[in-house]
């Protein structure tokens, strides 16, 4: 056990010392997050879809709504409350404004209040929308009276059925999946082949170090590193793009570990049939890039030709990225990622059997 801890410690240390792996596994994903996050941010003028339910239907509220029509950012639609609220819940609308009965009368009593229903808008949208609402109300108040503030509003949050998903939200779990894939393929597949080529494995074989401890050391050290990288990315996502983590941590860690195990075994499988480091590099890249682009890490698969979609259904990367996305963005629990975990487990078993059968120490 002590030997295992030592082995893990040294494997982690060695890993951190290789500058190129630091770049590819730590710096590069963060760069990608930042670049993609900013590039695909909506930078056209925000248009807000606002529904209006006017229960008052007298002069005051009607004038106010007319004022709202003049706001260039608003796309207004009036209608009955049931229809509008259901559209709000389905994210077809950003806000629903409700003017209660007696609104006009209450303006005279300086206590008119309308309600703003929202459902989980992104922070940027919320910020813009609020400043517009405040501005509209302020101007309306100036028109009515110079002294008090007869009109005010109150925000009410409504839970939507559909979670808002921005590109960054979509991309972040994919990026974590990418780290898992590259860790397995590059830091195991290529590194182990390198150790074999440099005779490190043979040298270890003449010591009493049990093979199991060696492999466990490799796997556990990689788990730590991937977890650290994932947290780093989530931190940057939170700070720069306000991505949030909706899921529950045990399920997230479970899926992440399963993903690491399957890709680490895939790495071992690759190193089992690669005699030379160059071969391992070639094979790893040949596996890595299709996985990267055909697993929906960068773009949703729906926009791809059918043949690619079929292919994506076979590769484990798709399932890892999907499972992480379900957990991180939608907050889904264990029961919703069973399929993904099953496929990952199948891949794990397959590459493990292959590795055990064909792994060589020299």
């Amino acid at each position, binding site marked *: 056990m002590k030997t295992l801890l030592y082995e893990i410690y040294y494997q982690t240390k060695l890993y951190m010392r*290789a500058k190129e792996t630091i770049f590819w596994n730590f710096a590069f994903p963060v760069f990608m997050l930042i670049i993609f996050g900013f590039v695909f941010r909506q930078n056209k003028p925000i248009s807000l879809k606002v529904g209006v339910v006017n229960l008052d239907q007298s002069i005051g509220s009607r004038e106010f709504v007319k004022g709202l029509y003049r706001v260039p950012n608003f796309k207004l639609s009036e209608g009955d409350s049931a229809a509008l609220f259901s559209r709000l819940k389905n994210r077809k609308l950003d806000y629903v404004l409700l003017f209660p009965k007696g609104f006009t009368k209450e303006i005279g009593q300086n206590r008119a209040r309308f309600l703003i229903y929202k459902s989980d808008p992104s922070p940027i949208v919320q910020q813009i929308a609020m400043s517009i609402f405040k501005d509209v109300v302020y101007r309306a108040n100036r028109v009515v009276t110079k002294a008090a503030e007869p009109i005010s509003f109150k925000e009410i949050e409504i839970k939507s059925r559909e979670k808002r998903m921005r590109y960054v939200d979509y991309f972040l779990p994919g990026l974590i999946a990418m780290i898992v894939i590259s860790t397995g393929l590059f830091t195991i597949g290529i590194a182990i082949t*390198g150790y074999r080529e440099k*005779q490190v494995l043979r040298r270890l074989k*003449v010591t*009493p170090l049990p093979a199991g401890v060696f492999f466990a050391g490799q796997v556990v050290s990689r788990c730590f590193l991937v977890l650290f990288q994932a947290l780093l990315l989530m931190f940057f996502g939170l700070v720069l793009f306000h991505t949030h983590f909706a899921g529950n941590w045990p399920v997230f860690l479970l899926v992440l570990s399963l993903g690491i195990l399957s890709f680490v075994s895939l790495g071992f499988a690759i190193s089992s049939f690669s005699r030379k480091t160059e071969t391992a590099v070639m094979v790893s890249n040949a596996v890595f890039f299709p996985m990267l682009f055909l697993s929906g890490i960068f773009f949703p698969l729906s926009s791809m030709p059918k043949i690619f979609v079929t292919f994506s259904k076979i590769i484990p990367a798709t399932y890892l990225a999907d499972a992480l996305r379900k957990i991180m963005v939608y907050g889904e629990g264990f029961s919703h990622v069973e399929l993904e975990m099953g496929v990952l487990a199948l891949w794990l078993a397959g590459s493990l059997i292959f590795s055990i059968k064909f792994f060589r*120490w*020299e």
Partner: protein
Amino acid sequence: MKNTKLNTTFGLTSDLNTRLYRCIFFIKRANEIKKTMSIVQVSHFSKYYGNLKAVDDLSFEIEEREIFGMLGPNGAGKTTTVETLEGLRKPDAGEIFIDGHSVLTNPDAIKPIIGVQLQANAFYPKMKVEEAINLFRRYYPKSLPAEQILELVSLIEKRRAQVEDLSGGQQQRLAFGLALVNDPKILFLDEPTTGLDPQARRKTWELIQKFRETGKTILLTTHYMEEAQQLCDRVLIIDHGKKLALDSPQSLITKEAGDRHIEFTLTEQVPQEKFRTLPYISKMWRNGNRFIFQTDVPDKLVVALIRYADEQNIEIRDLHIQRPTLEDVFISYTGRTLRE
């Protein structure tokens, strides 16, 4: 069986017979005791790679506290043999015991008591010297302090250097140090000085001798004659996987290469047969235009040779008389030099 045979053959009395039987018994016992004394026993070991016989029915024993050398050209089967002893390869035939444990059935008992330096120095890239030693120390149930190892292989100042930044000689010394971390009973060194400059080679020789003084056994392979001659108590000469000779360097030389060698070079091609008429030659080798005569009476042969050359109009250059070396022993067995 033996009893009756002895009885019928020699017609011995039963009393004498018992004594003889006892005698045989004691000789057998003595042999068994001798067997437990030798730390490495290799009997009828063979290893094939496809059709190639890398090692062919090789038997030898290594005694405790000796430096045992395996000498042979590249591809002779040295590395295959050493790596089988280390447990890296499985023998196709024969039995190998190390300190009483079979390499086939009990490799785990052997690993803690052997120290290994492979032909290529194998380290984790990016690891520092002291870390490499400490990591390896962890693999063994008991180990020497890192400080002691560093001091022994003179790498104290380099303890924080990365392995990749060490010179060839320093890497070699580190590999040697790593082979020592478990204070092994027996040390396997596969070509420990190949590729080193003369100074680094001497340094390694010193290390090996220093280590032997602590009462340990060493098996080393080499294709350097001087190395085997300088270091080894006994030398096993192998070629094409077969044992050619096994003895101390000195007795190999006197037995196989004779007393003195006369060496010379000719300026033109002359067939070997031309010298057949000369007296005093006990053996003759030729390598291109270079000739070696083995003789017990070098002075008389030199006179005869010069006279003969003069008569035949053959020009002789670079003539000298030499004490034979292991190289000559090797040539006498194979007709080839080691570097070929």
